[in-house]
C-alpha cells in the first residue's frame, strides 16, 4: 500500500514538473515591454526648449483633441529617420504634435530642427531624462498618442509609414 502511494506521489510530482517545464518552453525569455495604454497622462512640469516658460503636462493637453507626444533627441539616429514622417503628420488637421527633447543640448536640438524642419508645436526640454521616466518611456524615439488626457497608443522605437497610416485612420 505504502509503496503504491509513494509511486503515485512520484508520478504526480514528475507530471507536475514536466507540465511546468513544458509550459515555460513556450514562453519567450526576451522581454517585451508591456504597453500600458489608457493610462492618464502623467503630471509634471517642464521647461520649453526655446523659452524659459514652464508648462504643466496636464494643462497643455486639451480634451477632445488628438496629440502625438514624440520623445526625440538630436543624437538619436532613428529619430532622424522618423522625422520626415512627423513632418508629414503635421499636415493633418486633427492632430497636434508635441516634442519632448531627451538628454540633449539646446544648440544641437536647434541645429537638428533647422536641418530637418520643426513638426512640433511645443517642445518640452528633458535634460536629465526624468520626464521621460514619468511617461514610462525607455529611451528615444518613443511616441504616445493622446486623446482626452489619456494615452491611447504607445509606439516604442521609430515610427514607420504603416504606423503613421494607422494614426491617420485613428484620428479621422
Amino acid at each position: 500500500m505504502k509503496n503504491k502511494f509513494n509511486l503515485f506521489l512520484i508520478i504526480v510530482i514528475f507530471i507536475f514538473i514536466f507540465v511546468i517545464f513544458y509550459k515555460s518552453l513556450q514562453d519567450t525569455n526576451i522581454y517585451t515591454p508591456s504597453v500600458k495604454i489608457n493610462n492618464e497622462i502623467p503630471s509634471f512640469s517642464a521647461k520649453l526648449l526655446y523659452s524659459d516658460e514652464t508648462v504643466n503636462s496636464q494643462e497643455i493637453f486639451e480634451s477632445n483633441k488628438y496629440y502625438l507626444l514624440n520623445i526625440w533627441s538630436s543624437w538619436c539616429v532613428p529619430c532622424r529617420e522618423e522625422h520626415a514622417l512627423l513632418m508629414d503628420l503635421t499636415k493633418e488637421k486633427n492632430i497636434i504634435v508635441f516634442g519632448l527633447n531627451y538628454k540633449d543640448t539646446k544648440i544641437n536640438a536647434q541645429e537638428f530642427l533647422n536641418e530637418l524642419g520643426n513638426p512640433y508645436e511645443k517642445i518640452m526640454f528633458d535634460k536629465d531624462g526624468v520626464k521621460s521616466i514619468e511617461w514610462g518611456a525607455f529611451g528615444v524615439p518613443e511616441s504616445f498618442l493622446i486623446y482626452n488626457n489619456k494615452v491611447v497608443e504607445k509606439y516604442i522605437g521609430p515610427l514607420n509609414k504603416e504606423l503613421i497610416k494607422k494614426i491617420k485612420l485613428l484620428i479621422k
Partner: protein
Amino acid sequence: MKLLRLFFVIFFIIFPNQIKAEEGDLKNKITKNLRCLICQGQSVYDSDSEFANSLKIVVNKKLDEGFSEKEIYKYFEDKYGEWILYDPLFNKNTYFLWLLPLLIFLIGGAIIFKKFIKKHQ
C-alpha cells in the same frame, strides 16, 4: 564639561554622515532591485545606460520627497509593469513562486522528522 563638548563634536561629525550613509544604502538597495529594462541581465545599480542613469535620478528625487521604499517600487511598477522589480510582489500570480520553497522546506522537514522519530523508536 570638556568631555561633554567633545561628545557633542564627535556626535555632530558622525551623525549627519550616518544619515547620509543610510540614505545611500537605501538608494543602492532600491536601484539593485530595479531591472534595467534596456540592458538585460543588469540592475539599474550596475548599469550606466541613459535609462538607468535617469532612473537613479528619479530614485534620488523620490527619496528626497519622502517616498518610502515600497512607494518607490509601486511608482515604477505603475509606469513599467512588474518586470522592473527583481523581487516580484506577493500577489495571486506569485503565490506559488513565494510559497513553493516554504512548502518544500516543510515537506523535507516532515520527512526528516519522521525518520528521526522512527530511528528513536
